[in-house]
C-alpha cells in the first residue's frame, strides 16, 4: 500500500470507530444517545477525509454536519419529547426484521458482483506518493469553474429548503393570529 504505517493504522482505527458508532446509532434506545453516536461517527469520517487528503471536505463535514445538521437533529429531539411520544418504554424496532435482512443480503450480493467486475481497477497497487499542497484551492477552482451551474442550483435548493422548513414547522395558530 502507498500509505505509511501510521496512516494505515489511523485509517483502520477511524474506520472501526465509525462502524462501531454507526451500530450504536441504530441500536441505542434514546434518540439523544443515537445523535451523539452519529456525531462521533461523522467526526471519525472527517478524520478519514483528512487521511485521504481532502482537508477542505473534512472541515465542511465538521462545520456543516456536526455543527449544523446534528444541532438541528438535537433541537428536534428535544422538541419531540421521548416520554410524550411513548418511545421511552415501547418497542425500539418495528417488525421489519425480515425485509431488512433481505435488503442487506441483496446489498451484500450486489457488492460482491460489483467488486468482482471492478476487480483490477480496485487492486491495491496504487502508485506511491503523497499529494503536496493544500487541496482547498483546487477543490474551489473545480467547484466554481467546472461545477458553477450545479453550485447555483444548490444555493437555490438550500433557499427552497429554508422556506419549506419554516412553512412546515410553523404553528397553525400563528396563521390565524396573522389573519
Amino acid at each position, binding site marked *: 500500500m502507498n500509505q505509511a504505517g501510521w496512516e494505515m493504522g489511523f485509517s483502520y482505527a477511524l474506520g472501526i470507530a465509525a462502524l462501531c458508532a454507526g451500530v450504536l446509532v441504530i441500536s441505542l434506545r434514546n434518540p439523544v444517545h443515537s445523535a451523539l453516536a452519529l456525531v462521533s461517527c461523522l467526526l471519525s469520517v472527517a478524520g*478519514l477525509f483528512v487521511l485521504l*487528503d481532502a482537508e477542505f471536505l473534512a472541515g465542511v463535514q465538521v462545520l456543516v454536519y456536526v455543527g449544523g445538521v446534528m444541532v438541528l437533529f438535537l433541537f428536534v429531539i428535544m422538541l419531540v419529547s421521548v416520554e410524550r411520544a411513548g418511545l421511552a418504554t415501547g418497542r425500539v424496532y418495528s417488525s421489519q426484521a425480515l425485509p431488512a435482512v433481505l435488503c442487506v443480503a441483496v446489498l451484500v450480493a450486489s457488492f460482491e458482483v460489483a467488486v468482482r467486475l471492478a476487480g483490477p481497477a480496485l487492486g491495491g497497487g496504487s502508485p506511491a506518493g503523497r499529494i503536496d499542497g493544500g487541496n482547498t484551492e483546487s477543490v474551489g477552482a*473545480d467547484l466554481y469553474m467546472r461545477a458553477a451551474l450545479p453550485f447555483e442550483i444548490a444555493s437555490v435548493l438550500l433557499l427552497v429548503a429554508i422556506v419549506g422548513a419554516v412553512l412546515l414547522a410553523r404553528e397553525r395558530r400563528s396563521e390565524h393570529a396573522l389573519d
Partner: protein
Amino acid sequence: MSFYVVLSFLLFGIGVAGVLTRRNIIVIMMSIELMLNAVNVNLVAFSHNWELRGAIDPHTGQVFAIFVIVVAAAEAAIGLGIVVSVFRNRETVAIDEIDLLKW
C-alpha cells in the same frame, strides 16, 4: 483503497438496516445521514485514488461529496420540519402509528 470501499459498504449497510428496522422516525433520518456519509467516503476514496494515479480532474469526487452534503442538509431541514409537524398533529414519532394515509 479496498479498505475504504468495504468500510463505505458496511456503513451503508448499517444505514439501510437502521432505516428498515427502527420505529423512531428521527433515528431513521439519522440512518439516512449515515448512508449519505458512506457514499461520501466512497467518493473521496476514489477521488484520492485518481489523484494518486495522476488523473486530469482528480477533485470531481470531492465536488460531488460537497453537493451530497448540501442536499443532506436540505433534506434534514425539510424532514425534521415534517417530523415536527407530524408530532404536533399526531403526538407520535413512531412510524407504525403514523398511518393516516393507509386504509
